[in-house]
């Protein structure tokens, strides 16, 4: 988003920007999601399972 409402009060600003567009325009939110999701679902879930391999009797 190039403009904020207070500095550029033109016609486009009158329209509310949809939430999903805001999300996709925020690279740091995307970065957060793109790192956390695989870290939790792939790495952490996997490591937890690997620590739970039982010892051979």
């Amino acid at each position, binding site marked *: 988003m190039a403009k904020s409402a207070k500095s550029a009060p033109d016609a*486009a600003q009158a329209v509310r920007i949809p939430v999903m567009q805001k999300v*996709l*325009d925020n690279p740091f939110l995307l*970065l957060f*999601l793109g790192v956390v999701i*695989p870290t939790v679902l792939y*790495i952490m879930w*996997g*490591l937890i399972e690997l620590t739970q391999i039982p010892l051979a009797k």
Partner: protein
Amino acid sequence: MSVATAETGIIGGIAAKFRTCPATGLKIDLAAEKLIKANAVAAVVFLLIGGLFGLLVALTRWPAVHLLPSDWFYLVLTAHGLDVLLLWILFFEIAVLYFASAVLLSCRLATPRLAWLAFLLMIVGGLMTNVAVLQGESSVMFTSYVPMKAEPHFYLGLILFAVGALVGVMVFFGTLVIARDERTYEGSVPLVTFGAITAAIIAVFTIASGAIILIPTFLWSVGYISHIDTVMYKLIWWGMGHSSQQVNVAAHVAVWYAIIAITVGAKPLSEKVSRTAFFLYILFLQLASAHHLLVEPGLSAEWRIFNTSYALYLAVLGSLIHGMTVPGAIEAAQRKNGFNNGIFEWLRKAPWNNPAFAGMFLSLVMFGFLGGISGVVLGTEQINLILHNTIYVPGHFHATVVAGTTLAFMAITYLLLPLIFQRQVIWPKLAMIQPYLFGIGVAGISLFMMGAGTLGVSRRHWDITFSDATVTFDYPATAFLMMGLNGIFAIVASLGGILYILITVGTVFFGKKVDASNVVASLGPMPEKQVSGAVHEYGSAGTWHLPGTYILVSVFFLSFVLYYFVNWKYLSEVWPLS
């Protein structure tokens, strides 16, 4: 016209020198331009080295030639993976990131000095690991599975390289912030930049995984850590090893969109759909690192199914969307360019003699048909039992990384040479055939390795005749034929690769200078009827009639479904196991 329209802009208190691109009107930060050049040149050098190693690998695996002795084979195979899978690709990607941020947003690059430091770290790291491999004590393959040990500087070089790449990615994010704060663009970033953001995000996860696993491995190699769990190593290593290839996917899809915009004037059919497809990549693509852990002990079926399927195949959905919107955007643009007869005139009269377009389209088709379909099949939890570690695996990823990414990067080079290096491509006739030569070669490599892998031939194996083994096994004659054909097509691909390097290096040094008078002509042949500025509306506005794309996509989908179930049939015939 190196700095014909140079201006010094002092924005935000920081001076940066710009020139205005005569073709696109974009303001190009000269510091960014130098860095793009440096990274692209380093990429091409490593492509040359790594590509030649690849040829030696293929000639050794051609049973009738069997070129190298075993120790050299494993050494060269390690170096091949390192130089092309990591160094060529990542250097080029850093160049793409700087291009997609600084150039496309007409912005100054954030902290050019740090970007040079990143470049230096990547060079030093890349060279260090190469030296370690060539010294002969680190033939551990690209994957360096513990407890097989390489020399400490093998790991150290990789770590330095990764840190450098991470700094480069941060410079990219910093540039996005500057562009937004200094209002160098209006609204949302261009789609190509959004694709680059996707690649950069995946790169952060990739490099973080690499650091988490390579730093302890380095400490282990010098004796500070006594033990590294082998499955945990694989799990985290593939967070880097596979995700780095997902960086490629995001980057080369972004490159496809850029090439079709410049060569045929294509616009995204829908910003919303294409960006959502990239968003699905950001969320789920990295999960497919699990593709490499489908036959390991100790991981549950739930973990395997969820992760290998990128959470219900949502990242595959992203690729399937791009697979339709990219040809769809070409069709819409070409129909507006006037090629509106019949179902396929738009495709027939596409600029096939423009190496950027031809390379891009071959990349699209081969990535989809060969790389994409085989990747999903290979990554199906149970089907992996009949394909894991066979040469089907390199068959698959040569279709994605070489036919897909490398060919796309080669294709956009033909635009970067006039736009960034400001040189006219020398030998335009040879440049015209280069993507075809390379493409045919890679298609052969991929297909024949996949064929041999289906017959059980092992990857990373010096001698499938087992001539000096105590116990032996005879692979079917067809497998030998396939490996021979793989060798022949590797030669074809190498010719295409060498041609690419000769053309790019020759152009950089000897190409005619580009200025405002010849810049458009320097981009290569364009569709004849295209009138500049004729395409103002989105594809979805007005002539949203894309019968050709629907037919192409249907053919693709049917092939996918058919091949998928054929492999389930193969699986159902092997010994029951549970």
